[in-house]
C-alpha cells in the first residue's frame, strides 16, 4: 500500500480511547440488531465479538464480510470495517480483501442458503486456495430473510413454504464438504452454547489458513419443527474426551456419523 498517501490517524473519540486503554474493546455499533427476538444469531454475535475482544483484535484491523440473508446484516451491528456483499459472494470478497491486506483479520460470514446454495461454488475453491480467513456458516436450515423456504440444509421431507408437500431432496453436509476439499480447520458449534462457540472462533481466527466453523442456529420465526433450541440441545454433544483433532480419519468419521458432535473436529496446524 506504499502507493497510497497514508492519512494521519486521529483519535477524535475520547471514549474509544479510554475503552482501549482499559483493555475492553467495544465492537457494538450504534445500530441494534434487527433480528427477531430469540434468533440464534444473537448468541453467535455475542460469542464472536467476545472472541475478537479476547484476542485483542482492534476494530480498525477487522474486516467482516457477509453475504445476503439474515446473517448478512451482521456487519451493520459491529464497529469495524464491514462489507455486506451479495447473496453467496462473501468468500471471494473476503479472500480479495485478505490478499490485499494480509495484516488485517478478515471474517467471512455465510448463511446456509447463501454459502451452500447460491454461493456453494466458491467454497471448495476458497478451501483449496486456503486464504487466512475465518468462515462462519450460520446454519438455520431454512431461508430466513425470504421467509421460510427450503435451504440446502433443510432435512428431506420437511414441509416448508416452498415445499408444502415436503422437501424432496436430501440435505447437505457442510463439515464433510469442508473436510473433503482439504480445509485445515473445521469446527462445529451450537448457537445456544456461547462459551464453546467463542472458543471455536478464537481457535479459528488464530489458525493460519482457511478455517471453517459450522454453527447450528434456530430460526425461531420460520422453523417450528427442526432446529428448535430444545431439539438442538438434545442432538448436540461435545466431542468425546481424548478426541484427536489432528486425525483426518477421525474427522471424517465424525462428519459421516449420525451423532452431532460439536467442537474442533479437525485442526491441522500450519507448517
Amino acid at each position, binding site marked *: *500500500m*506504499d*502507493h*497510497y*498517501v497514508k*492519512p*494521519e*490517524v*486521529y*483519535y*477524535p*473519540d475520547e471514549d*474509544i480511547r479510554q475503552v482501549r486503554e482499559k483493555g475492553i474493546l467495544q465492537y457494538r*455499533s450504534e*445500530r441494534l440488531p434487527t433480528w427477531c427476538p430469540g434468533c440464534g444469531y444473537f448468541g453467535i454475535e455475542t460469542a464472536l465479538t467476545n472472541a475478537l475482544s479476547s484476542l485483542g483484535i*482492534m*476494530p*480498525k*484491523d*477487522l*474486516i*467482516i*464480510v457477509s453475504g*445476503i440473508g439474515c446473517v448478512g446484516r451482521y*456487519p*451493520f451491528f*459491529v*464497529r*469495524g*470495517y*464491514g*462489507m*455486506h*456483499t*451479495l447473496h453467496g*459472494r462473501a*468468500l*471471494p*470478497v*473476503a*479472500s*480479495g*480483501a*485478505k*490478499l*490485499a*491486506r494480509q*495484516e*488485517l483479520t478478515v471474517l467471512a460470514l455465510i448463511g446456509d442458503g447463501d454459502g451452500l446454495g447460491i454461493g456453494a*461454488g*466458491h467454497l*471448495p*475453491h476458497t478451501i483449496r*486456495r486456503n486464504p487466512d480467513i475465518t468462515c462462519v456458516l450460520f446454519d438455520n436450515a431454512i431461508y430466513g430473510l425470504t421467509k421460510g423456504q427450503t435451504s440446502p440444509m433443510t432435512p428431506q421431507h420437511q414441509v416448508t413454504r416452498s415445499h408444502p408437500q415436503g422437501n424432496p431432496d436430501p440435505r447437505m453436509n457442510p463439515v464433510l464438504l469442508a473436510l473433503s476439499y482439504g480445509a485445515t480447520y473445521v469446527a462445529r458449534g451450537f448457537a445456544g452454547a456461547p462459551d464453546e462457540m467463542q472458543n471455536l472462533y478464537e481457535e479459528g481466527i488464530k489458525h493460519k489458513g482457511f478455517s471453517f466453523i459450522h454453527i447450528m442456529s434456530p430460526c425461531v420465526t420460520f422453523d417450528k419443527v427442526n432446529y428448535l433450541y430444545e431439539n438442538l440441545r438434545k442432538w448436540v454433544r461435545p466431542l468425546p474426551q481424548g478426541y484427536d483433532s489432528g486425525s483426518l480419519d477421525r474427522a471424517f468419521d465424525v462428519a459421516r456419523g449420525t451423532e452431532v458432535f460439536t467442537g474442533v473436529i479437525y485442526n491441522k496446524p500450519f507448517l
Partner: protein
Amino acid sequence: MGGKGSPLTYEKSLTIEICGSSGDRALAAGEILIKTLSDIGYHVISFDAYPAEIRGFGKTVAHMRAGREFMLSLSRKVDILISLSDRYAIEQLRNLNDEGVVLFDNRPNNVVYEDLPHDADQTEAHRLGPGVYTEKEGWKTPTKDDVSIAGHLGPGMYLYGIPLYQLSQKTTNESRSRNIVVLGAVAALFNVPEKEFINNLTAKLGKKDKSIESIIAAFEEGRRYVIENIVKLDPYSFEKLSVDRKSYRLMDGNKAVAQAAIDMGCKLYAGYPITPATKIMEILSDELPRHGGVVVQTEDEISAIGHVTGAGFAGVRAMTATSGPGFCLMTEFIGYNVMSENPIVVVDSQRGGPATGLPTKTEQSDLNHALFAGNGDTPRIVVAPTSAKECYQWTAEAFYLAEKYQTPVIVLMDLFLSLSVRNVSLDPIPDYKKGGNKFPTQEDMKLYLRQKITDDGVSPRALPGLENGYQAVSGLEQNEYGTPVYDELSHTRMTEKRFRKIQTALENDVPLPQRIGVSGRVKVGVISWGSTTGAVMDALDSILKQGKSVAMLKVIVINPLREKEIQAFFDDCEKVLVPELNYEGQFANWLSMHFQKKLYRYNKVAARPITHDEIEEEINRLLEE
C-alpha cells in the same frame, strides 16, 4: 537482381502475409519480419488471427501491415503473400491485391515437401518424380490439393519461386528453416536492411539450441539466391527510414493493459481464462509478484470480480479482465460496486457474441452491456481506447477514475485491440494519477460518515486500518449514517449523489473528444469508438489528401458523454456516419438517446475488424449521395 523496385515506397503501406501449415513456423517468421520493419522506422500493425477464413487445424497466417505513416488499422487487400504451404496459401490468394506478389517454395519436380520428415528418402522422392509424401501413404501422385500455388495466380500478379527447401537443407541440414530462408529472400527482394534482420534473428532464435550461425547462413542463402537469380519486377520495396523510433516498443493491447496495471501499482489481479483476455492474466502472473502483487485464477468470473471488490474495499488497486460471457457473470457485482461506491477496474475485451459466440473473432457488441449491465439505476464510467497506446493510457486512467470517483470503471477493448501487435510509444503516467482517493480530513473524522452527501457526490473514504473510519458498506440503499433505508427521500438523495459523482468526473476528468480533419462545416463527419476508430483515422488520412470536406470525432469516454462538444460537432456536419462492428448500431443508439441528429449507420458483423478501405468507400458514398 535488377528491375524496377523503386524505394517507395508504396504510397500508404504494404500488407504482408506469411502462410504456412503448423510446422512451418510462419508466425515466428512474421514476428521477426515485423520487428525488423519497425526497427528500420516503419509503423507496423500485425494481427495473426486475421483474416476470418483461417479455419481447420494446421493453417497459420502471420498478417501484418507496415507503412511510413502512423496507422491504426488493417487493409482489406494483401500486397505480398509468402507461401510456406501452397495448399493453404492458395486460399489466401483471394485477398491478394491484383498486382500482388507471391513468394513460394519452388521445388524440383513439383514435389510437395511440406510434410516430409527429416529422414525421408530423397532418392526415392526423385526416382518417383512429382509426388507428395504423407506419413500415412508414403509417396503418391499429386492430387488437386497438392499442386503448386504457381498455377493459381491472376494475370497482373508477380511470382517469385525460391528453392526454400533445398536452401534450408543445404545450410541447416533440415527443412524447417524454410521460414528463415524466405526472410533472406524478403530482405533482398524488398530492400529490407540485413543488419536489423540479423539482429532480430539472433534475438529471437539465438537462445534456442540450434546454432545461430546456421540460421544466419540460411538467411544469407535466401538473400544470395535472390540477388543472383531473380529479376525484380514488382514495384514494392522498403528502405531504412531516417526516423528515431527508439522509444517505440512492439506490443499488443493486452500487454498494454497489463503494463498499465503494473505501472499504476495494481496489487491484485483476479481472473478466469477467456479468449481474448487470458493473456493479460498470463502476463501479470509472471510480472505482478515481482512488483509485490498477487494474481488469483478464480473458479469463475463472479469470484474474480468478488476478489477485486474485496481488494478495492481494503484500499488496494485491483483489476479483472474478461470477455463478454465472463462479463455477463460479473453483472451483479457491477451494481454492487455502484451501490457501495467501491473502486474497481473491469476490462472487457469483446469478441463475437451472443453467448459463447465467436471466441476468436473480434466484435464491438458489448457496448450495451457495458453501459447498462445491472439492475436499478447504475451509473458507471465506460472508456473505450482505440489503440494499443490508448489501452495503456486508459487502463491507467481507469484506475485513477475508479479510485477518485469510487465507482466501477469498465475498459472496453476488443479482440483486435487485444491481439494485434503495434509499435507504440507510451506516454508516462503523471504521478498525481497514481493516488486518487479522497481521504477523510480531520474535520470529516469528527463524525465519520462513509456515505456523506457532498456537493461533488464523492464521500470521504477511510480505508481499513484507520481508527474510527468504521463503516459497513452494502448493496442495500443506505443513508449518510450507513443505516439501510427504504424511504423516498433517502433513496432519491443517494441516487442523485451517485449520478452527481459521474457528472463531476465528466467536468474534471473527461478530456474533450478529439476532432480531426477539416474544421468548421463539413459534408460528412464520422464519429466512432473503440478499435474501429483506427480504421476511420486511416481512411480520413487518405480522404483528406484528396481535399474532401470530411472530419471525425474520436470519443474514448463513452459514459459520461461530452455532450456539448459532440453536439457542436454534429451541428457542423451535414451527415454523420457511425461505423461500428455490431449489427444493432449500439453506439449509434447510445448517441440517439442523447442527440436529435440523424445518423448514417455503418454496421458489420464481419468476424474481422472493419478496414480503412471500407470506411473510405462508405465516406465517399455519402459524399456523393
